[in-house]
């Protein structure tokens, strides 16, 4: 009779399970989702301590990246940043020079070419040098024809420019190809260092976020040891016990991402003085670009991913150790 009694109970449970399984599954998830958010909101100070650290950790590489990006946008605008002067050989016919000019202008890597003929150069020289008409005494013009070339922005990296220079030097009409770009090389080297630094910083800080979330969840688990034990004793499954911790990590990550966004926005505001100063120097109407919606989105996703991973690791490592005895 008792066997029957127990069988009946079993059937009842199975019956209701199948019926409302999917619905109640989602309802339970949403409950935990909101419950963990509620828990976080109910102790705002404590939650802020965790999420602020995550926010800071996310903000730094994002902020550095943003600075670099803006910086590259500025440098791309620099007119005449890399200017190549081609001093042509003497006694080349006007048509040939004209053809070379249009050929070069048609190149993909080139933004524009201006042709300064020897005569024009002489005129200029007369005007500005102070030698004036005394130069009329010269038999023939000693100055060469010059092509002043501005490479396109997308081709202004040092390597590409060097390739361009090599090409020009091979051209039979070109006497000397000259480039004042040492300081551009320097700039790019500096940017290389900064970029490497950002990658190291970003990697370190991603680890930091994982650790912070993992550590917080780990201590959270230890803190709720008694609760976990009682839940296990009254028949909670591992999945049930794990769920709130994972959602807590989720929220930490998301909120941390939002804090990072805020920090960066505020920092840009603080930095804008220096940056406007920098931009002013180049006479450019450059305005610093913030993270925008896509940046916010990426920060939230990154935070979410790291928060969830951190809590996943902590839960995996520590929840199993808590067993009633």
């Amino acid at each position, binding site marked *: *009779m*008792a*066997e029957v*009694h*127990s069988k009946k*109970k079993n059937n009842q449970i199975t019956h209701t399970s199948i019926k409302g399984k999917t619905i*109640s*599954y989602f309802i*339970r998830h949403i409950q935990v989702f909101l419950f963990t958010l509620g828990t976080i909101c109910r102790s705002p100070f404590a939650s802020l301590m965790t999420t602020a650290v995550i926010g800071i950790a996310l903000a730094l590489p994002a902020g550095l990246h943003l600075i670099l990006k803006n910086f590259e946008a500025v440098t791309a605008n620099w007119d005449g940043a890399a200017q190549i002067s081609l001093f042509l050989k003497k006694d080349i016919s006007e048509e040939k020079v004209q053809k070379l000019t249009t050929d070069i202008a048609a190149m993909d890597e080139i933004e524009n070419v201006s042709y300064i003929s020897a005569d024009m150069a002489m005129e200029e020289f007369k005007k500005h040098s102070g030698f004036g008409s005394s130069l009329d005494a010269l038999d023939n013009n000693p100055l060469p024809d010059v092509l002043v070339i501005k490479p396109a922005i997308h081709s202004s990296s040092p390597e590409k420019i060097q390739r361009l220079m090599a090409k020009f030097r091979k051209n039979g009409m070109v006497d000397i190809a000259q480039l004042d770009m040492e300081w551009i090389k320097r700039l790019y080297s500096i940017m290389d260092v900064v970029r490497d630094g950002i990658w190291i910083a970003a990697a370190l800080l991603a680890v930091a976020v994982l650790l912070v979330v993992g550590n917080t969840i780990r201590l959270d688990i230890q803190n709720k040891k*008694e*609760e976990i*034990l*009682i*839940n*296990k*004793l*009254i*028949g*909670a*499954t*591992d999945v*049930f016990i794990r769920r709130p911790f994972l959602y807590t990590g989720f929220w930490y990550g998301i909120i941390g991402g939002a804090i990072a966004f805020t920090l960066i926005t505020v920092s840009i505001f603080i930095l804008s003085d220096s940056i406007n100063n920098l931009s002013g120097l180049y006479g450019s109407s450059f305005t610093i670009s913030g993270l925008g919606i896509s940046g916010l989105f990426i920060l939230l996703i990154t935070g979410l991913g790291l928060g969830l991973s951190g809590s996943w690791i902590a839960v995996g490592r520590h929840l199993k150790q808590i067993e*009633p*005895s």
Partner: protein
Amino acid sequence: MIQFDNATKRYNEGYEALSQVSFHINPGEMVFLTGHSGAGKSTLLKLVACIEKPTRGQVIVNGVNIGRLWKRSIPYLRRKIGIIFQNHQLLNDRTVFDNVALPMIIQGVSHKEVGRRVRAALDKVGLLSKEKLYPITLSGGEQQRVGIARAIVNKPPIILADEPTGNLDPDLSKEIMELFQIFNQVGVSILIASHDIDLITKMNHRILTLEAGKLIRDGK
């Protein structure tokens, strides 16, 4: 319902807390477990609830062999057992209502159903008026009764109780034992560990007596 076949439990330290214990509790039976301090009463209850596994021999609960039970299946076994702990094991940061509701939350029972059944359980132990209080503000006896309400709220086929009246005055102890008797009358199997020999002999149920891990007496 609960069957021990030469069950032996030896803790890591080498001490044999239970030696070759055999008995059988039928569905709907009410049984007391007694013995001196350290005799192995709590250990026996832990075996039933699959908190410990037998070193040798078999323990079969509700048709399930505890020794061979998968870790993943343990929760489902425990849902069929209402456990009342010696030291209450209540969550101090939840109200009485929430504490009693816990087993049903775990099983995903619907909100309305939870409210109805929690209040029914609290009513049975006479604590309906205190549902909004926190355990810390209750006296020892009241906490014990919250624990009982939590154990019965799911209407489990088995109830285990480890010295449920240890901290209660004689009148309340008798009341609680009568409460168990009422559950028993609707078909629940009940196993209660207790020191209060006077009280349990008066109740006139089967009594298992342990001594140093051995079952030395089984009868009224």
